[in-house]
């Protein structure tokens, strides 16, 4: 596996240029997704819905604006968040296997959301808040378990994450197994991810968190670069490692918590996309952050579109699609990079 390197130093222009290209691609992806689905809707229909809605059937308008658009946007935001979170976790733990799913943060968030539902909150602010708390508690647990005198040992963190993941998933399964029927269905979706009940209000709540989180994390992008050589090295160069770690973990937890509370558990996004980005563009987080985030949005929009068209009128849970795409990629990574990860 070749890692491409820059000839000269990274410039703002390059970052912005590549980001713009990705944003255009994202726009195209959104457009294509609006056309795909169970109902037959063409590009022309979609244009008409947004421009001059008088010539369009009511059902078409509804399908595009109330079903597909909220869903596509939420998928984009979730992909954005999970991918960025994965990149940051990998940098913080210096381990390519880290992502919000693997470290258990997503399942902690899902657990928080499930508790909120049981306590009677519906999707207002109650559920995302509990999800955020769940995410925080999880990341705290994982870090506490894996902290050593010299900082966090990443392989222990991964293991701790696996255990925490299993723990929370088991609890969620417990609730599912013992719940009365009507609650059952709303909880099943936590295990596979489900974007079919998306509403615009979910995106409205998630977007500011995602964007603010991005800029906050971006302000630490160089710090994360320096961490690549080890925490001590970073300290020598002037990085306040404790603070960077704290702020970044909190920011990711908040973003992931909010996203997961609306979409359920979706894995592999934070694993695949940052890796692909790194393979293509090098390791500088100042470029990788926007690329991973936007790439993640693209990826999940595509996965969700596949999830709802491949077996129409049935739907695959989107987490299944990402797993289908993610697992082989993972195996490929293991084979090509092999033992480098054990260091």
């Amino acid at each position, binding site marked *: 596996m070749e890692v491409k*390197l820059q000839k000269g130093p*990274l410039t703002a222009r390059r970052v912005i240029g590549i980001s713009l290209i990705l944003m255009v691609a994202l726009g195209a992806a959104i457009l294509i997704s609006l056309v795909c689905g169970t109902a037959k809707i063409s590009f022309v229909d979609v244009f008409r819905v947004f421009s001059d809605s008088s010539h369009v059937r009511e059902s078409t308008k509804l399908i595009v604006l109330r079903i597909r658009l909220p869903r596509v946007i939420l998928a984009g935001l979730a992909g954005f968040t999970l991918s960025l979170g994965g990149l940051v976790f990998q940098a913080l733990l210096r381990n390519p296997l880290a992502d919000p799913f693997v470290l258990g943060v997503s399942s902690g968030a899902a657990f928080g959301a499930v508790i909120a539902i049981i306590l009677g909150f519906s999707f207002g602010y109650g559920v995302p808040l509990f999800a955020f708390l769940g995410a925080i508690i999880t990341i705290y647990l994982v870090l506490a378990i894996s902290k050593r005198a010299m900082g966090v040992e990443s392989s222990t963190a991964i293991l701790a994450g696996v255990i925490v993941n299993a723990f929370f998933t088991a609890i969620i399964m417990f609730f599912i197994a013992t719940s009365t029927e009507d609650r059952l269905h709303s909880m099943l979706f936590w295990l596979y991810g489900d974007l079919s009940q998306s509403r615009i209000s979910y995106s409205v709540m998630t977007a500011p968190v995602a964007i603010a989180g991005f800029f906050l994390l971006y302000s630490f992008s160089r710090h994360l*670069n320096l961490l690549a*050589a080890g925490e*001590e*090295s970073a300290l020598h*160069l002037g990085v306040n490692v404790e603070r960077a770690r704290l702020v970044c973990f909190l920011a990711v937890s908040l973003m992931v918590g909010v996203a997961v509370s609306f979409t359920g558990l979706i894995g592999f996004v934070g694993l695949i996309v940052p890796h692909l980005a790194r393979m293509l563009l*090098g390791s500088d987080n100042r470029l990788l952050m926007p690329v991973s985030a936007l790439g993640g949005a693209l990826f999940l929009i595509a996965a969700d579109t596949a999830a709802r068209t491949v077996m129409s009128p049935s739907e695959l849970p989107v987490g299944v699609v990402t797993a289908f795409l993610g697992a082989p990629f993972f195996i490929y990574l293991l084979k090509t990079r092999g033992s480098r990860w054990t260091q």
Partner: protein
Amino acid sequence: MIQFSDVGFQYDEGLWALKNISFQAGKSELVGVLGPNGSGKTTLLKLGNGLLRPRQGEVLLEGKSIDSYSRIQIAREVAMVPQQTHFHFTFSVLEVVLMGRFPYLKRFEFEGERDVEIARRALETTHSIEFASRPIDELSGGERQRVLIARALAQEPSVMLLDEPTAFLDLKFKKEIFELISSLVRANAIAAVVVSHDIELAAKYCDRIIMLKEGEIVFVGKPHEVLTCESVEYVYECSVVVDENPVTGAPRVSVV
């Protein structure tokens, strides 16, 4: 210049790792720190960097207590070259050296022309300019060490701390590194403290030698003065013979 004034350090409530440490390294001075493992050499460097705070006494940078400096300010003055660095993600050599500019850039700032210029100059000085766009993990030990020194230079420090910089290097590179350090120190008016196991090379290139045993300074002075049979035997607890290297004239230690 860096000064240790009666510094003492204790890890938790246990043993005192360092006691009554007082010495200084001034501009263009290369001070070598010798001693067996566990004598507190690494702790000394960490105190010099502000990573650890002394329990007793104080560390002074350019006459001011290191406590009055922020992390970033310290990084502008003091550069550390570790024994080895493992990069978990691949960066090019130039990118690594540019990391040394971290203390000078604002949060969202990208490196400017001056920064790149400084980095290039650092690479040139350390004879690593030809690897500028190669990935750091493709370099050999010696080459990598030179890059780390270049990174330290890019910090434009007034003090350099080097932790056994030749530990994992081949003979050929050991000499190279010491020569490099020595010339850098003189050319850039840096005060440098080098921790090493390489008694001979330290003796040859250092202006002064400090010998540590069990956390305390037992000998300090010019290499010729400090490195005697008795002192080496005392510090390292093994029988040696110390004579003069016939070619260079520097003290030569041989184990018997």
